C-alpha cells in the first residue's frame, strides 16, 4: 500500500467514519461502497491539497479521479509532478 492510500484511508477513518471492518480494494468505488458522498469528497480534496501542497482543479473532480483509492493515488501523483 502506498503513502497516498494510507493517508487517504487514515483521513476516511477519522473524518469519514470509515469502519475498520470494511476492507477496501484499491479499485473499489468509494461512493458505491457508501464510504463517501459529495461533502466528504470535498473535505478529502481539501485534505489532499494541504497534505501534498497541490492544487486540485475543480474540473478534475470526476469519478475517474476520485472514486477509488487507485484513482486518487494516480491523480495526486500526477499533480505532484506538476
Amino acid at each position: 500500500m502506498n503513502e497516498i492510500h494510507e493517508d487517504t484511508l487514515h483521513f476516511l477513518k477519522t473524518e469519514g467514519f470509515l469502519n475498520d471492518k470494511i476492507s477496501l480494494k484499491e479499485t473499489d468505488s468509494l461512493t458505491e461502497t457508501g464510504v463517501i458522498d459529495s461533502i466528504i469528497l470535498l473535505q478529502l480534496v481539501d485534505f489532499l491539497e494541504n497534505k501534498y501542497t497541490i492544487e486540485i482543479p475543480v474540473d478534475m473532480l470526476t469519478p475517474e479521479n476520485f472514486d477509488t483509492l487507485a484513482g486518487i493515488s494516480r491523480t495526486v501523483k500526477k499533480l505532484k509532478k506538476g
Partner: protein
Amino acid sequence: MSMAKPSKTCKKCVLDSKTPGISINTDTGLCQFCDHFTPVTKEKKAEYRARMDALLTSPPQQGQYDVIFALSGGIDSSYTLYRLKKDYPSLKILAVQFDNGFISETALENAKKFCDLTKSTYLRLTLDQTVLQDTFSKAARSRDAYPGSAKYRASDICNTCISIIKQKIIELAVSTKSPYVIFAFSPGQTDAPFITLTKPFLVWMRKLFDGNLKAMGVTERDTYLIDAAYIQPGSPDPQVTIIHPFLVWDYDKPTFKKECIRLGWIDPDLKDHNSSNCLLNAFAIKNHLDKYQIHSYAYDMAALVRQGAMKREDALKKLTINESDPSIQEVQRKLNR
C-alpha cells in the same frame, strides 16, 4: 456478570463514546476530532472574506439574478439574507423557500417578511406533497441509504430534504444563469466556504443522490434531481459557485436571533431545540437516534463548540430530546398513512 462499559464524553466538545464511531483518547480525554483539530487562522478567514467580497461586490452580469438563496425562514437563513443585502446592497437575490409540507406557518411568514425587508424576490418551491411525504416515509424506514459520514451530519430525512433543495436550487441557478448559490449552513455543517461547480461534478452529485433515493425504494426520482438536460454532454458548462457565508463571518446564533427579532422575525416557539422552521425535524432526530444511536445534531454541535462558536452547556442542552413534543407523534401519524 458482564458490565457495560461506561460511556465517556469528550472533555472539549459533546461527542461521547456510546455513539458508534466516536472514540475518546484515554490520555487526552478528547474525541478523535478534538484531538486533531486545527482552527482556521485569522489570515485564512481574511482570505475568505476578501474572496467573498470580490465575488459579491461585482457579480458577473450573466443572468436574471446574482444569487439563488436557500431561505428556510429560520434564524440562520433569515439573518444571512439580511446580512447579504446589508453588506452587498446591489445584489439581486432570488430567495427560494422549499415547502416540504412540514414548515411552520411562522416560517412562511418570516421568509416573506425578510424578502420584503431585503427587496429580494421570493419563490415558494413546491413539489407534489403526497409523493414527497411518501419519500420522507421511505427515508424514515430506510437503513444505510446514505454513507456512514452522512449519518453524522444529518438524519436520513434531513439528508433527503437538504439534497432535494440542493439539486433544485442548483438547477434554478443553471437555468437562470445566476452565478452564485448561497446556503446558510453553519460552520458545523460544512467545511468548504466556496465550491465551484463543474459539469462532471454535478453529474456525479446527481448520480450519488439518485443512488441514495434508489436505496430507499423511491421509484419516481427524476423530480428530485437536477434536470439532466442541463448537464448532458454538449450543454453549456455551468458557471455557478456555491458560497457558505457562515464560514467567512463569525457564527454567533444568539446575536443573530436578537438581530432577527429586532427586524421583525417571529419566534415560532417550537419544542424542538434544533429547528426554528421545520415541524419534521424533531421526528427526524428521534427516528435517526432509534435507528443508528446517533443524534443527528451531535456532530454539528460538537464542531461549533470545538470552534468556539457555541458554549458546551448550550450544545448539550440542544442534544436533549423532548419525547413529549407533540410534533413527533403528529409526523409519525402523517408518514405512516
